[in-house]
């Protein structure tokens, strides 16, 4: 094909521009790019948005005092709606934007889907909220860390509370079929069976978003369970617990930190009363947590939401790790995260070889007069 001079000039010009542009995209600039990925819209946005606020506050503070080792931090915020199929897109987008480390993702399923992409790119993640045991214990994701305890550490207080304090003999275990809820439910079932103190009379998954849960509630009633353990998130939990109370069932309802959110109390209203949920330990006495909460109130004139403290801690741990390692290189930063202790709102923490935080745990809460109150 014969090219006219004009076309050829244009092509050359385009090629030159491309060549000039490419290195700019590939070479990381003078900033450290921290990605923040999680649910920022959709049903579960209330779990993801507090992390964005926490990251912004920490980053503003670090940048104000001159950045990490002289480099300013830049935040790249991406939404995954807690959907695994979107999380892979989110991860790819962040990696292509040259992200150095990531705070997130929020939900276990989405995190699991995104991890291989980050691993490939040598990017370290710290999640404030993904609690599936597999993420750390499978050993497949050396780039994964978290500032929240794993579900097996969450299922344990749930089961112990149900068997010992509530003295339930028959337990119904219900879950939402998701990675997080089902994983938690399976651990709870195993713990109950191994304890020998009670039996699991029902183990079933419900379809999230269904219009009506009365059939499963009738089934729980039929199983004569003394207590229900639910693994999943608050939209289904509030529907199931409201339906139980409507059917005049007073069976104890015990759930997890996916339910420990003020939206649950707001939506379930009076039916939320006396519901038990586990959640990260109460840190209200920790001066760092007080300072972090005060900073949030000052900047956003609202109380922080779910996982705020663990996100704040994740950001602090990352900043500290990068400072000590002097790099965002995966091997160097992993080592720093594992060895350097850091003071955070959730306590003085470091990470074990699997990536789980040492020094955090779960406590049991009950809803009393519209508030989560820690029970012993």
């Amino acid at each position: 094909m014969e090219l006219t001079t004009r076309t050829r000039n244009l092509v050359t010009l385009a090629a030159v521009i491309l060549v000039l542009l490419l290195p700019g995209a590939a070479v990381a600039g003078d900033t450290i790019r921290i990605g923040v990925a999680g649910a920022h819209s959709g049903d579960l946005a209330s779990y993801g948005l507090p992390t964005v606020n926490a990251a912004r506050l920490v980053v503003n503070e670090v940048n104000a005092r001159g950045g990490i080792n002289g480099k300013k931090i830049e935040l790249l915020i991406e939404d995954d709606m807690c959907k695994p199929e979107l999380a892979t897109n989110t991860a790819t987008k962040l990696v292509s934007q040259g992200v150095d480390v990531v705070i997130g993702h929020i939900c276990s399923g989405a995190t699991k889907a995104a991890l291989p992409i980050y691993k490939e790119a040598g990017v370290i993640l710290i999640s404030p909220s993904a609690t599936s045991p597999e993420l750390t214990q499978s050993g497949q994701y050396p780039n994964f860390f978290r500032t929240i305890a794993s579900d097996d550490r969450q299922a344990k207080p749930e089961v112990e509370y149900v068997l010992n304090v509530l003295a339930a003999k028959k337990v119904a275990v219900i879950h939402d079929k998701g990675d997080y809820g089902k994983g938690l439910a399976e651990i709870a079932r195993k713990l109950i069976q191994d304890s020998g103190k009670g039996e699991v009379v029902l183990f079933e998954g419900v379809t999230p978003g269904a219009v009506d849960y009365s059939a499963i509630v009738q089934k729980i009633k039929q199983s004569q369970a003394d207590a229900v353990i639910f693994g999943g998130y608050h939209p289904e939990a509030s529907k199931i617990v409201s339906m139980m109370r409507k059917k005049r069932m007073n069976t104890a309802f015990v759930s997890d930190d996916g339910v420990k959110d003020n939206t649950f109390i707001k939506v379930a209203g009076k039916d939320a009363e006396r519901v038990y949920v586990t959640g990260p330990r109460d840190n209200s006495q920790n001066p760092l947590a007080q300072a972090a909460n005060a900073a949030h109130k000052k900047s956003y004139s609202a109380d922080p939401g779910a996982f705020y403290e663990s996100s704040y801690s994740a950001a602090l741990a990352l900043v500290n790790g990068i400072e000590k390692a002097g790099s965002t290189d995966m091997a160097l930063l992993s080592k720093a995260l594992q060895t350097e202790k850091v003071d955070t709102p959730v306590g003085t923490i470091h990470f074990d070889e699997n990536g789980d935080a040492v020094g955090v745990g779960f406590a049991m809460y009950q809803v009393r007069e519209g508030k989560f109150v820690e029970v012993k």
Partner: protein
Amino acid sequence: MDYFIELFCSGLTRGAIYALIALGYTMVYGIIGLINFAHGEIYMIGAFTAFIVATVLSIYGFPLAAIVVVTGISAAIWSSAYGYTVEKIAYKPLRNAPRLTPLISAIGMSILLQNYVLLAQTSDFLPFPELIPEFAFMEPVAHIIGSSDLVILVTTAISMLLLTLFIKFTRLGKAMRATAQDKTMALLVGINVDRVISATFIVGSLLAAIGGLLIASHIGQINFAIGFIAGIKAFTAAVLGGIGSIPGAVLGSLILGLTESFATGYVSSDYEDVFAFSLLVLILIFKPSGLLGRANIGKV
């Protein structure tokens, strides 16, 4: 036996919920042969309108009965306005386009409306006020069937009856049937087809709004995404019963609800959807036009 009755009642409630939405679906399809995928979103908008109006009214301390009436009327008007507008914007310009075009346009409308409510309102779940009181006479059977279940069942039955009478005996109903049979011929005998189709959308949206009000009050929470799953299930029910047929939509919904309920009760709720959709496949294999549908060639 008690357990069977309990599951039966659960299934009926669920079926009636589907039916309230399916009626609008099937009616629009019956008249203009369009699967209006935005119908679930009209239902969601009805629920949101009801939420806003009911919340405002209860702040001013109106009595419950007044709240229910005013909320119902405003949700119906608002949803109808949306239904009417959606038809004018997304379907009317495509009236003579190939059948798939308005279908795609409907899906687009559905996504648009969802995201519009997400942005204009919130992504959080909102607590919907309990508009249906707990009736004292229902107390002895409250553990089996609640007051809101009863209200939904009765409303569905009345809606089905009124809709059938409306289409059979009113002038507008006759015009609708004529339009359904042959649009060109209807034009030739002096029927204003555009007006008839607009009226169809208004009636369908009105039903969706009533559904939104009752169902949201029954479930106790709403968010921008509730229309999608409810819409898909109601659509399934309408197809099961024979899309285009009004008694068929109710029958299909009840069968779908009962199947799901018994599957949960006697097998496992893990397989609830498997049973529901296997049933759909089976019925469509043996009766492709649905249970009460007339065989109709050439419609999507």
